[in-house]
């Protein structure tokens, strides 16, 4: 501030018909001084505060003539006495004075510019009560899940790569059998697969495998690109497919970093009239709880939504809340090594939450910021060192 000023609250200033920069005459019983107004939200109503020490007449090339001398307001008797005076009056004199400030005033009454520092999360604040209730309130997720949120964890130390999860999923979810020619063209329909990677040399290879399935990402790249919102997010954290709405652009599959989406290239059941599906017993093979997908639509792991819905129905019947432990996915049930854990990540005591918080836990391709919800527990090799 180059000048001193008469700080007025915006409401008082409005009543006086003045605004920042307007010159006003402030008078007390002892004298008067002319000072520019500066709006100061938070200043008490019907009061004015002015800094002393400005308006000097002999303060060198920099100090002389800066600001306004308000000592006449104090009167000689009180020069060394009280600095808080009552009974002052303010009168608009006309004219204005340019006040230069390094921080511009942010009006509180303009909806457009109001509280931008809060809207933009530059300044983040809370209340003591809020903090005492939830010390982590500042770091809550952007997408808030009021209740249960499904998540999975896969312990790669336990996984033996046996493919039982794949078989379990196939049976549970009516995964089409597509035939050798289609698999040769990369059209297998499995919702979960065991990815196998080699490292090392031919003489001393090392093997890693990793069950891979839809990661039910919080920030799912597939959902953004679907033109018809056929793939979208449920309130309990599932990335879901509305088969009826899907038109088959396949954009979701292209934009999935994990390539876990599967497209119905044909009506698999009709195409293989000479194959499996026309045989009598196969009509009865399908799980009646799961939609049989038609040709031209995309599909992928649902986290066994039919089991979740069934468990929710039972919970409702019993008049209680659905718990994370009420549901086991087909792959989880099939896993002989209990490598797959499924449950409610909103419950900090759930098993899946413990896995998510484990120091060996990680998410695949975290740098894409898809925020996947399948946590992998890094494998530790015991090399006998």
């Amino acid at each position, binding site marked *: 501030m180059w000048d001193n000023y008469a700080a007025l609250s915006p409401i008082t200033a409005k009543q006086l018909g003045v605004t920042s920069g307007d010159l006003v005459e402030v008078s007390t019983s002892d004298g008067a001084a002319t000072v520019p107004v500066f709006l100061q939200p938070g200043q008490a109503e019907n009061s004015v505060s002015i800094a002393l020490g400005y308006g000097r007449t002999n303060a060198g090339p920099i100090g002389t003539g800066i600001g306004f001398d308000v000592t006449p307001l104090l009167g000689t008797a009180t020069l060394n006495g009280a600095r808080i005076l009552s009974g002052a009056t303010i009168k608009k004199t006309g004219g204005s004075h340019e006040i230069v400030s390094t921080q511009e005033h942010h009006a509180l009454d303009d909806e457009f510019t109001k509280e931008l520092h809060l809207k933009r999360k530059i300044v983040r604040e809370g209340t003591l009560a809020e903090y005492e209730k939830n010390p982590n309130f500042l770091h809550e997720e952007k997408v808030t899940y009021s209740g249960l949120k499904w998540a999975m964890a896969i312990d790669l130390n336990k996984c033996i790569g046996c493919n039982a999860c794949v078989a379990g999923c196939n049976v549970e979810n009516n995964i089409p059998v597509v035939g050798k020619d289609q698999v040769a063209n*990369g059209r297998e329909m499995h919702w979960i697969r065991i990815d196998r990677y080699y490292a090392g040399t031919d003489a001393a290879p090392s093997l890693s495998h990793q069950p891979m399935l839809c990661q039910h990402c919080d920030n799912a790249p597939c959902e953004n690109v679907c033109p018809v919102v056929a793939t979208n997010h449920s309130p309990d954290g599932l990335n879901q497919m509305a088969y009826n709405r899907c038109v088959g652009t396949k954009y979701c599959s292209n934009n999935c970093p994990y390539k876990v989406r599967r497209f119905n290239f044909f009506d698999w059941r009709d195409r293989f009239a000479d194959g499996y599906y026309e045989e009598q017993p196969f009509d009865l093979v399908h799980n009646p709880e799961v939609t049989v997908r038609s040709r*031209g639509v995309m599909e992928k792991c649902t986290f066994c939504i039919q089991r979740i819905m069934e468990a929710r129905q039972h919970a409702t019947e019993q008049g209680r809340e659905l718990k994370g432990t009420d549901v086991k996915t087909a792959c989880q049930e099939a896993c002989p090594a209990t490598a797959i854990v499924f449950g409610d990540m909103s419950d900090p005591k759930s098993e899946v939450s413990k896995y998510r918080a484990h120091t060996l836990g990680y998410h695949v391709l975290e740098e894409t910021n898809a925020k996947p919800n399948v946590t992998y527990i890094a494998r530790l090799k015991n090399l006998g060192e």
Partner: protein
Amino acid sequence: MTSLDYTIDPPITTRAVTPAEIDSAIAAPLDRFPSKRWWIAFGVTSTMLAGGLATIAYMLYEGIGLLGFNQPVAWAFDITNFVFWVGIGHAGTLISAILFLMRQRWRNAIARFAEAMTIFAVLCAAIFVTVAHLGRPWLAGYLFPYPNQHALWVNFISPLVWDVFAVNTYLTVSLVFWYLGLIPDLATLRDRTTNAVKKLVYSVLSLGWRFSNRHWSHYERMYLILAGFATPLVLSVHTIVSFDFAVSVNPGWHTTIFPPYFVAGAVFSGFAMVQNVLIIVRKMFKLEHIITMKHLENMNKVMLLTGSMVGYAYAMEMFVAWYSGSQFERFVFLNRALGPYAWAYWTMVSCNVVFVQLFWFKRLRLSIPIMFAVGVLVNVGMWFERYVIIVTTLSRDFLPSSWGHFSPTIFDFGIMMLGFGLFFTLVLLFVRFLPSIAMAEIKAVMDGAQAKH
């Protein structure tokens, strides 16, 4: 001492002609029974079209799995051909709208043809992106935001929805612009013909045009407005098509260079196609004095410019992939140049960047066989550009476990044939039934039409 030419606009036609001669020369293919060569060409293209339609019909019956795409390469010939045809359209709009606003009057001789090609190309593109691409084409209407009792709405953050709007706007504006330009010529045809059926058709289509001063004044105003309206589309349509890729997360797609790179490529391939077709048309219909070497040379210059811009984009993609420090980006670009699709990448680079450099030399720029060959190669190269972008990125993206390889099936070539068959059939019908050069506009640039000092 050289004498100065004070002509405001030198005449475009290479020899002095009268307005009547122009009408006769341009309307000649419409007046006579088509030649044997036309029937042969039409036979070939309509057979291709029929083959393509049969492919589509079989795909509708059996499923789009007949095409070769797979997981992870879920887009291949469908989107390659879509982007290719949208790109072809761009030269037409550039010639008819941008060159018009810039008062490049030489464009009058080729604008009509180029605009017609725009419309045909966008129609081809629309076919690829619906019947040859969607898993359930009969539900393509879901992509339009229409009120319905299910309260379903489209996803406005998906680039595919932007595509729907971009392509439809492009088709509508191009069609209206083209038809408006046709009206005075349709009136000329109406006045020339003695055939009662033609008279009726041309009378209806020419909307009562009487060549009055008032008609011309309205026409000129409207033409200017539509040119202004079409101009941003040259940039916006392919920009939005490029967003299909740029907005995704995939390495090799997720890049900000795509919009200008795609627009330059679109103009490049569009000019190559216009140049190729015009070389044939001017020869077949003896219009060399109206579509002159100057036109061909100008188009070759535009190709040299846009081809070099595309070449710069290829170099920048490589540089930025390295400079980004992202291992995924680096891998994708090395994989393009050295991986299983290296043959496609180098076909693209040589066709789009190397051969077009011949146009630096005036002698080669004016040689019809050479410019024709370069034009064909440019379109081969631009087709491969889209193929390389789509297929190399998808075939080897983030997780090596899901890498795959795309090989086209006979049905992929079937839908590709549909594109070329439809396009050239429409071109042949166009030259047979409508004036392929704007007669009215040519009269404005012939010798004596412009004021002289």
